[in-house]
Every structure is written in C-alpha cells, then in structure tokens.
C-alpha cells in the first residue's frame, strides 16, 4: 500500500481542465486561491459558517472550505471568475451592481454564486424552510422575500447589506425567468 499523502488531481475550473498536485489536507478553497491564483473566492471563517467561499460544484453550490480538493477530483467547479460569459455579466451580477448588493464586497463572490444556485434550485421546485407547504401537490413556492432570505441564509454579510442583496436576487430572478 502506498503511504502517499498527496495526489495529482484534475479539476474542471470554469470550463478549463486544471491539473495540480495537492497535499490531501488542501481544501478546494485553498487549491483555488493558492494553487490556481483564483482569489475571487473568499475565505471568511474556514469552517462552513459564513458562505464567503461558495462555489458551484458540478453546478450545485458548496462551501469550498469544507470540500477537500482531492475529493473534488474530476468535478466541475465554477467560481466567481467564471460567472460572466463572453465578457457579459450574468443577470445576477448586474442586479448586485445596479442595486448595490454589497458594501465592502468581501462576501459578494459567495453571495453571487449562492444566488445563481438559488435561482436554479427554485426553478427545480425545491422547497425551503420558509415554504409553508412542502408537499409537491402544493406546487413550487413563489420566490418571495422571505423565501430569498431563507435560501440565502448560508451567506453572511458583515456589512449587513442584506436588504439590497434580497432586492438584487429578486430582480435577477425576474430577469432570468423573463
């Protein structure tokens, strides 16, 4: 048996295969920031408690600080650097800009990645803890401010830009479904 404590892995980051050698202790967050120079994804708590490090893993939001890089081998990672397409901002990014969904901006990459997933999860009919009736017969819940607050609750903002974040997500939801 090998006693190796590091591995060569390939991550598909923002559409590009990236091969790197990681010590197994490396989180996806540190692999992105320290190995690949993608510093858009932020480190807040490093314990899953703030959402600053939110990325999309195979299209679903995840906290990169509790994801071991080696365990993400072969998977697709979308970071904030990969959200705009062909130089055009995504409607979620535009809404954050237009409605000032931030102050210092530190939590913003995580907020935006999380918001992208919120729109997808809602479109897929997922209920949330704010959904009065979770039974499928009740139909998908409307994306009210309460629903947005609950669904975005995994992303803390030390500047407390929450009201504008909720407005931005609501506007982006309209833009995306239009």
């Amino acid at each position: 048996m090998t006693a190796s404590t590091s591995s060569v892995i390939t991550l598909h980051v923002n559409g590009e295969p990236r091969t790197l050698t990681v010590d197994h202790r490396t989180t996806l967050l540190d692999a992105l920031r320290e190995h690949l120079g993608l510093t858009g994804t932020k480190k807040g708590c490093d314990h899953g408690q703030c959402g600053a490090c939110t990325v999309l893993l195979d299209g679903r939001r995840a906290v990169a600080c509790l994801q071991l890089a080696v365990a993400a081998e072969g998977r697709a990672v979308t970071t904030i650097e990969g959200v705009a397409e062909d130089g055009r901002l995504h409607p979620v990014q535009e809404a954050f800009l237009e409605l000032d969904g931030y102050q210092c901006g530190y939590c913003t990459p995580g907020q935006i990645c999380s918001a992208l997933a919120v729109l997808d999860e809602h479109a897929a009919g997922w209920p949330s803890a704010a959904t009065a009736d979770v039974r499928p017969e009740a139909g998908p819940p409307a994306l009210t401010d309460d629903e947005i607050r609950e669904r975005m609750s995994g992303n803390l903002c030390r500047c407390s830009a929450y009201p504008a974040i909720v407005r931005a997500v609501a506007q982006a939801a309209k833009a995306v479904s239009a």
Partner: protein
Amino acid sequence: MREFRYERAADMAGALTLLAAEPGARPLGGGTNLVDLMKNGIERPALLVDLRDLPLGRIEPTADGGLRIGATVTNSDLAAHPDVRRRYPALAQAVLAGASGQLRNMATVGGNLLQRTRCGYFTDAAAPCNKRSPGSGCAALTGEHRNHAVLGASPHCVAVHPSDMAVALAAFDAVVVYETLDGPGELPLAEFYRPVDSNPQLETALPPGALITGVVLPPAPVAAASRYRKVRERASYAFAIGSLAAALDIRDGIVHDVRLAFGAVASRPWRARQAERALTGGPADAAAFAAAADAELAAARPLPHNGYKLPLMRNLAVSVLTELAEEAAR
C-alpha cells in the same frame, strides 16, 4: 491537520476492506463535519475512504410501501424528493431546517446521522471532555451548558445530538441499515444511538468498521400529516435549542395515532413515547397536548442554565399539535 491518505472506494467490498485494514481510517461523506473537526485537530484520521462512488445515492420505494434512502443521498436531494415531501413532510422540513443550502448539497444521510455534538468543549482541545478524551471530566457541567441536555443525560456527558434530520427519522421509526465485512445488519433508530452512560465517546451501536448503507422508513400513514418545527437563536442557519417532529391522526375527535420526537434535548433524538401513550385514544385538545408534554418532561433533569427548555418544549408540542389538529378538522 495531520497528514492522511485518501482512497476513493470503487465498491462496498473495497470500502470495507480499506476500513478494516487501517484502524485510523474514517469514511468520508460530504466532509462537512469530518473536515471541520480535522481542521481543529479533534479528528485525526490516517486514511479517508471516500464513499462518493458507492451505489448508495438513491431513494427507492420499498415493497411494503415505505422508502429506502441511500447513505450518500445528499440532504438537499432528500428534502427535494417528492415521495419524502408527500409521505413524510416533517422529514423534508427537518432537513431543510438544518445548516444552509451549500452544506445540504454536500452533507449525506450517513454523515448527518453520525455528526458529532456541537458542545463547545468537545471542539476545544484544552477543555476536559469525556466524549473527546474519556476520563478527563465534563467542562459543561459547571460551564456553558445553555444548549445542553435535559433528558437522558449522565454526569459523564450532557451534550445534545445536533441533527434535525434524525429527529424526524426517530418519529417515523426509521431503521439504519449497514454493511460489515461479516455481512449486513440493521438497527432501529431507537437503538442506533446508545444511551449515555460512563462512556460518552461511544455514541452508536454501529459495529467497528461498519458502513451505513442507508435508512429505511417503514410505511406510516400518520406521517402524511406531520410537521417539524425548530426553535433557534436566529431565524436561520443555526442549530436548534429545541425542536419537535410531530404527526397526528385524529378520528372522530379522538387521537388514533400520534408520533412525537424532541430534538436538542438529549444525546440522541428523543422519541417522546410517554407523551404518545398519554395522547393515544384520548381527546385532541390543548389541555391534552400540554399534559402529554408534561408527562414526557417529568423525567427531565435540567442543569442550572437550561431549564428554559422545559417550557419551550411544552409550548412547542402544544402549538404544533394544535396546528395539526386544526388542519385535520378542515
């Protein structure tokens, strides 16, 4: 963090063999608890066996009309599943009440069941803690224990189990199924978590080296009218200070079937059988609900700073059962 080896198991036999060959091995589900604990040195595995590729990611109906939920099903997929939402709505609600959207996408059913307590002394390597370091004492007894156990604790450990999901599973008589090198086994949730004795480091009855393969929910018509309610210190993204899974079937004004389980009051999800017995066959009104909660809580032994959990659980039981009764009457 200690250095460790990493293997991605291709199949069940491979995973079990890897776990058996290395006493310091740990299965890796979503890693949301394990990696966190490795970061502060509380867990120091020599090998992680990643369960990702095992065929345990499905939710399927069982022949008798229940559901079988695979161990690597994510918390998100569990809560979004139509059969879970339709037939066991309190389970979907319990899962949705836990953690955050990001964490639920990563967390698995097996890992959720086996997540460790959030007692602050357990994760503080400098503090005495019998669960982390057997025989060292329990700092919570005379320290910070606002969110510790009021039921079924021992002087050796007063920690609570933090899972929301497990509370709903307890209410619905879920059975944990597992695999070992010697073959499969199963444990009803009521026997899965050991009562706390002088060995709080031993939390479950799972044999060493076993892998949880899933959870089986028996058919439970009463569960279709069920609810999970969680009380916490902020509106979302926080652990419970008290929670309740309840299901109620009323026929001709009389309680025909009822399920109750309390969360964040004990070292395990607390199935409230005394309360269920008190209610079954009797009236479904607020006085009966309060008396039933009191019957359950009669055995409670609060600590100096967590006595609030008694009225909290009583009020929670009365309000949730009253809602369910009103909805049944509509």
